[in-house]
C-alpha cells in the first residue's frame, strides 16, 4: 500500500486545487450574473463583464474541470492498472505547473489578453504551458497503462484514453496562431474557416472535457459506490465507439444560419441527432445498473448523485440535438436559453458526478469514511435546486426574448423594434438566476467543507496510527 501513498497525495493535490479554482470560478460567475442586471458592478478595466466572463468559463472548465479530471483519472488509472503511476514525480510537477498556469491564466484574462475564441481564450504563451501539461498527463496515463498489471482494460480506461487523444488534437489545431507580441496573436484561420475550426474545437471541448472523462468517472465510481456491476458491457462498447466517432462531426451546429456553407451545417445537424443514441446508451446503462437494486438510492448516499447526474446528462443530450435543428436554432440561438442549456450540463451532470467521485476517493486515501453524510445530502439538494432554478429561468427568458426578436405584424414589420424592449424583460429572470447561483454556491461550500473535514479527520487518524506526536499545524 505504501507504493500508492505519494500518488494519493498528488491525487488529493489535484482535487484540492480543483476545489479552490472551482470556488474562485463560481464566485466570479456570481459577480458576472450581477453585472448583467447591475452595470455599476463593472469595475473597469479589469473587472468588467467582457473580461470576467472568460475568467469564469476558463476557471471552471480548466481549473475545476481539468483539475478534477487530472486527479480522478490518475486514481482510476492506478486502480484499473493495479499499480502506482509510472512517473510519480512528473505528476507532482504537473500539479504545481497546473496551479501556476491557472493563476496566470486568470490574471492574463483580466488584463484583456485573449484570442477571442470561446474556451480557447488564453494567449499563446499559456497555450504552450497547457500543451506541456497535457503531454505530462499523457505520458503518465499511457506509461502506466503500458506497464499495467491487469491485462483487460475496463470501460473507464477507454474514456480516459479517448480524452487524452482527442483533447490533444483539438487544442493543437484550434490554437494555431501567429504571435504579434508576447500577449497578442491572430488566429491562423480567417472568417468562415476561423469559425468552423473554432466550433469544431468548442463543441468537442464539451465532448472531451465535460463528457468522456466524466463518463470515465461514472463507469468507475458508480459500481464502486453502489457495489452493483455495470448492467451491460456490450452496450458500453457500442456507446463508446459511436460517441467518440460521432462527436467530431457536430461542431458546426453552433453556426446554424451563419455564412458557413450549408452542407457543413447540415452534416453537423445530422450527426448531432445521431449523438442521442450513444449518449443514451450510457444513460440506459446507468439506469439499469442502479435498477438492479433501487434501494441503494436510500442506503447509499452517493447513488443519488450519480442517478441525478446521468439524468441531467440524458436531458442535456436530448436538448442539445433539439437545439441543433434549424427551426429551433432560429428561435433560441443567441438567447439566454443557451447558458441555461450549458449550465444543466456543467452544474447538473459534471458537478454531480465529479463531487460524488471526490466523496468516494478522499476517505479512501485515509482508509476512513466521509466526514458527514448529512452535509453531503444538504450539498446535494442545494446544488440540485440551484441548478434547476438557474436552467429553467434561462430557458423561459430565452424563449421569451427569441419570440420578441421574431415577432412581426401583418405587414411584416417588427412588433418590438427597439432592442431594449426585448432586454428589459430579462431583468427579473437575471435576478432569479443570481439567486439560483447563490443557492448553488452555498451547496458547493457545504461540499468543500465536507471534503476538508474528511481530510482533517483522515490526517488525525494517520497521526494516531503512526503513534507519533501530532506535528504543529503547517
Amino acid at each position, binding site marked *: 500500500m505504501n507504493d500508492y501513498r505519494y500518488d494519493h497525495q498528488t491525487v488529493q493535490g489535484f482535487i484540492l486545487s480543483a476545489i479552490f479554482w472551482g470556488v474562485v470560478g463560481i464566485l466570479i460567475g456570481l459577480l458576472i450574473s450581477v*453585472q*448583467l442586471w*447591475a*452595470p455599476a458592478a463593472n469595475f*473597469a478595466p479589469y473587472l*468588467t463583464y*467582457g*473580461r470576467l466572463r472568460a475568467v469564469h468559463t476558463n476557471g471552471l472548465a480548466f481549473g475545476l474541470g481539468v483539475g478534477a479530471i487530472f486527479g480522478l483519472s490518475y486514481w482510476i488509472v492506478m486502480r484499473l492498472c493495479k499499480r502506482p503511476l509510472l512517473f510519480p514525480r512528473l505528476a507532482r510537477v504537473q500539479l504545481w505547473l497546473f496551479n501556476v498556469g491557472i493563476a496566470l491564466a486568470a490574471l492574463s484574462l483580466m488584463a*484583456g489578453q485573449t*484570442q*477571442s*475564441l470561446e474556451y480557447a481564450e488564453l494567449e499563446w504563451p499559456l497555450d504552450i504551458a497547457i500543451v506541456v501539461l497535457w503531454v505530462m498527463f499523457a505520458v503518465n496515463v499511457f506509461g502506466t497503462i503500458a506497464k*499495467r498489471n491487469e491485462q483487460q*482494460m475496463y470501460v473507464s480506461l*477507454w474514456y480516459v*484514453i479517448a480524452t487524452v*487523444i*482527442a483533447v490533444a*488534437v483539438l487544442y493543437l*489545431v484550434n490554437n494555431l496562431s*501567429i504571435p*504579434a*507580441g508576447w500577449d*497578442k*496573436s491572430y*488566429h*491562423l*484561420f*480567417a*472568417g468562415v474557416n*476561423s*469559425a*468552423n*475550426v*473554432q466550433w*469544431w474545437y468548442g463543441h468537442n471541448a464539451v465532448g472531451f472535457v465535460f463528457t468522456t472523462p466524466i463518463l470515465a468517472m461514472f463507469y468507475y465510481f458508480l459500481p464502486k459506490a453502489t457495489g452493483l456491476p455495470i448492467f451491460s458491457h*456490450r452496450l458500453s462498447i*457500442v456507446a463508446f465507439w459511436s460517441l467518440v*466517432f*460521432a462527436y*467530431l*462531426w457536430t*461542431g458546426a451546429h453552433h453556426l446554424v*444560419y*451563419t455564412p458557413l*456553407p450549408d452542407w*457543413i451545417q447540415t*452534416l453537423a445537424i445530422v*450527426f448531432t441527432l445521431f449523438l442521442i443514441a450513444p449518449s443514451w446508451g450510457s444513460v440506459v446503462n446507468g439506469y439499469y445498473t442502479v435498477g438492479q437494486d433501487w434501494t441503494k438510492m436510500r442506503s447509499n448516499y452517493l447513488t443519488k448523485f450519480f442517478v441525478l447526474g446521468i439524468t441531467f446528462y440524458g436531458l442535456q443530450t436530448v436538448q442539445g440535438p433539439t437545439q441543433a435543428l434549424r427551426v429551433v436554432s*432560429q428561435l433560441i440561438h*443567441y*438567447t439566454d436559453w443557451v*447558458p441555461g442549456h450549458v449550465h444543466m450540463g456543467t452544474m447538473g451532470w459534471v458537478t454531480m458526478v465529479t463531487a460524488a467521485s471526490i466523496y468516494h476517493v478522499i476517505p479512501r486515501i485515509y482508509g476512513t469514511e466521509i466526514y458527514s453524510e448529512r452535509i453531503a445530502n444538504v450539498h446535494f439538494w442545494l446544488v440540485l435546486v440551484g441548478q434547476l432554478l438557474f436552467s429553467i429561468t434561462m430557458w423561459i427568458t430565452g424563449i421569451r426574448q427569441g419570440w420578441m*426578436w*421574431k415577432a*412581426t405584424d401583418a405587414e*411584416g414589420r*417588427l412588433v418590438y*423594434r427597439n432592442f*431594449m424592449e426585448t432586454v428589459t424583460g430579462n431583468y427579473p429572470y437575471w435576478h432569479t438566476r443570481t439567486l439560483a447561483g447563490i443557492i448553488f454556491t452555498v451547496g458547493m461550500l457545504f461540499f468543500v467543507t465536507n471534503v476538508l473535514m474528511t481530510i482533517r479527520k483522515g490526517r488525525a487518524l494517520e497521526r494516531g496510527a503512526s503513534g507519533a506526536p501530532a506535528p504543529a499545524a503547517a
Partner: protein
Amino acid sequence: MAGRIYSKAFPFSVMALVAVLAGTIVTMAYPLVRPEMHVKVAGLAPLGPLELAGRDVYQREGCVNCHTQTVRPLKSEVVRYKGNRAQEPTGRYSLAGEFAYDHPFLWGSKRTGPDLAFEGWIKPSRDWHAAHYADPRALVARSNMPAYAFLAKEQLDAAELQAHMRALRKVGVPYTDEDLAAVPAAVAGKTAMDGLVAYTLSLGKAVNRAAPGGIDVELDAPNPLAASVEAVVKGKALFETNGCGACHGDEAHGQEGVAPSLVDGEFLGVAGDLPDAAYFAMIKGGSDVKPALGRPGVPDGGMQAYGADLSDEDVWSIVAWLRNQKAHEAAEHPEHEDAEHGKKE
C-alpha cells in the same frame, strides 16, 4: 468488436485516434481547402490602422461575449438590422466573403446586446458611439452595458499597431509596406476610443447596404396629415419604436454632443426653421439629403435613412408629431416659466 482490442492498449489507442480523426478530416480539415470557404466580396479591403486598433480593443474588452456579428438570413432579423435597405438581395444578411480578413472571426454566440454586423450602416454617427461607449445609460435608458470612458484616455501606440499588422500579414492580410508606413500619421493623437468608434463604423461596410438614394426634395409639398390628431399620436409612437429618442432624446429636445434638438429654432445648424417637407426628406433619406436642403448640419452627421423602413404616411406622421411638439413647447414654455417665478416669489 468484442475481445482482444480491450486488452491491447496500443491498437486500442490507434483505433480511438482514427475514430476521432474521421469527423475531424471531413468537417474541419476538408473545408479548409474548399473554394466556397475562401470567397471574398468584390473590393474587400483590410481594416485601416485606426479601425484595426479598434478591433484589437473590441477583442481585448471581450465585446464578443455580448454582441454577435452575423445577421442571419431570417426575415425578422434582416428587418431588425436594416439589411432590407440593401438594393442587392444578397446584401441583406451577412456573407462569407465579408470576413476573409477576420483573424479570428468575431461572430459571437450571445446577443445580450444587439448584433453589430451592419452597425456602420445602422448607426453611422461618430458622436453617438463615442458618447454611448463612455456612458451607455446616458443614451439608452436601462442598458446593462459596462461604461468604457477610460478608453478615451488611452493613447494608441503606432509601433505596437505596426507589429500587429506585420503578424496579420503573415496570416494572409494584404498589408503593404506603405500601409505600415502610414500608421504613425493615422493614429497620431488618437485614443483607443477613437479606434473603437472607427471600427464600429466600419462594420458591414464591405457590402453596399445603403438605402435607395435619390430622395426628391420638394420643399413646397405640404404635410397631408398636418391637421390630424391620429397622425400626431401615431407619430409619437413611431418616434419611440424606431428608437429616434436614443439620439434626439425622448421628447426630441436633442442631446448635447450627440444629436440636435428637433423642436428649437434651429434646423441643420442654421437659425430659422424649414418647412415640414425638409423634415420629411431628412427622415426618409438621412444625412445624404443635407446638400439638397442647402444647410450644413453637424459635420459627417449620422442621421440614418428610414425610407426603406417607413411608409410616407408614417414619416408624415412623425413630422406631424414633431410640429405638434414644437408648437406645444412654444405655447407651454413661457407659461411654465411664469409658474416657476410665481412659486419663487
